[in-house]
């Protein structure tokens, strides 16, 4: 089968999704409602919460949390990463911490944050931030370090000062690598969002999942999960588009 044809490709994807939907529907009908609900019931539950306004309210609550945490991660991670890449002693001193925290499952820190900061909005944002910041930071450091010394020499030859070096060379070069980190942060931030809503005070889409589960409203729970899945897919696409936008020039190997 020639999958290079866009038509055939699209048809294959559509068939696969349709089959998945059928399997979901059929298995749902022959399983206890306590474990699993058919797709049709999930969708009608989704419609119900959409109509009565619960969905919008919960989704907005989640979204606020997510955007606040993610934005903080980018605003802190990118400049700090560039600083670490350029100031050698700072990097040597802090690199191991970055690597340690990057590989730590952040969920493990949640009980600690809970006892430190309680149940408010701030600790939840902090959780999303902690999930999202390390990919941004790590990719920025690696990117900024990979800049060719030749290009820095060119800048010096043209009498670039330090801040001009940042404006013309360091930032535009590193940004494309930072965006790779942002793409990863978009995905990890979503995990952080749900984790924060589960383990700190329940709210948003996480609360919808939990309530569905506790009330044996399997369709309601699946509706919230489905929404998060779709949100994730959409955000990943957005991340890839962002990354591509900042790496137009990377077809080049200087």
């Amino acid at each position: 089968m020639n999958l290079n044809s866009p038509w055939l490709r699209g048809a294959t994807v559509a068939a696969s999704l349709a089959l998945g939907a059928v399997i979901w529907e059929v298995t749902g009908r022959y399983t206890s409602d306590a474990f699993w609900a058919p797709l049709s019931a999930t969708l009608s539950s989704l419609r119900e919460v959409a109509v009565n306004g619960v969905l919008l309210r919960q989704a907005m609550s989640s979204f606020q949390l997510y955007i606040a945490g993610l934005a903080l991660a980018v605003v802190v991670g990118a400049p700090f990463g560039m600083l670490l890449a350029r100031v050698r002693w700072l990097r040597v001193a802090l690199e191991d911490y970055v690597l340690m925290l990057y590989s730590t499952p952040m969920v493990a820190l949640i009980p600690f944050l809970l006892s430190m900061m309680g149940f408010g909005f701030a600790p939840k944002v902090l959780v999303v931030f902690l999930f999202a910041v390390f990919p941004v930071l790590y990719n920025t450091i690696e990117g900024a370090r990979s800049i060719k010394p030749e290009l820095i020499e060119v800048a010096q030859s043209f009498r670039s000062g330090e801040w001009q070096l940042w404006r013309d060379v360091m930032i535009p070069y590193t940004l494309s690598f930072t965006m790779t980190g942002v793409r990863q942060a978009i995905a990890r931030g979503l995990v952080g969002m749900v984790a924060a809503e589960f383990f700190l005070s329940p709210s948003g889409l996480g609360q919808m999942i939990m309530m569905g589960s506790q009330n044996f409203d399997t369709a309601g729970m699946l509706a919230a999960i489905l929404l998060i899945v779709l949100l994730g897919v959409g955000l990943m696409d957005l991340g890839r588009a962002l990354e591509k936008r900042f790496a137009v020039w990377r077809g080049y190997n200087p």
Partner: protein
Amino acid sequence: MKAPNTPPRIRIAAAGKRYQQHQIFENVDLTVGEREVVAIIGPSGCGKTTLLRCIDGLIPLTQGEILIEGSPMLAPRAGVAMVFQHFGLFPWKTVHDNVAYGLKLSGISKAEINERVPHFVKLVGLSGFEKYYPYQISGGMQQRCGLARALATEPRVLLMDEPFGAVDAQTREILQFELLRIWEDTPTTMVFVTHSIEEAVLMGDRIVVLKGRPSSVHEVVEVDLPRPRDRATLLLPHFAELREHVWGTLMADARQAEFDVIKNN
């Protein structure tokens, strides 16, 4: 018109460079006048590129001094521009923005930059490619862009670091003649580092042969070929004589030098 006591464009006196235990070159004396092209040639690793970086003020000497227009080169300075072997274009900038780079750093207004850049883009034959990124154009075109970036700052000293060393043979020839044409239009002081004997003879008014370990000026060859030079220059009997002479100087103990490298390492 010139005042009798005007200092030479470039004066290099007893210059030496040492990295830790390793003396790269020593006792280099050289004076380069206005409108003069000096080609520096020597075997790989003889320090000709290092010397050029010292002239640009990118790295400091450890002995002696380098004066441009009478004042010592301690850091890169306006009026001195370098063209790099590896082109050194910023891959995220378009041709236009790369050419504009030096002007932008000199604090020239955007309007004036946009007025000046097209002239230099045209001078190197890149009109129509202003919006291209480096990865979209050939190596030869990239080096044209690198040349335009240096020329746009209207340098009084142009430093060329094996500028055509990374392009293919045919492109190299085309670019050599283009450079000669551009130089004829606005003759400036040029120091041209190369490892091609033919290129040194074609470009230079004088050829400085660097040799030895540590290297020093082994011979200075006067190139009394008429200007303007073009393809016909290559056919002159005197061109061949000069080429053979430099070849003889450079290759006399090339085999010995090659074996010295192994011993030193």
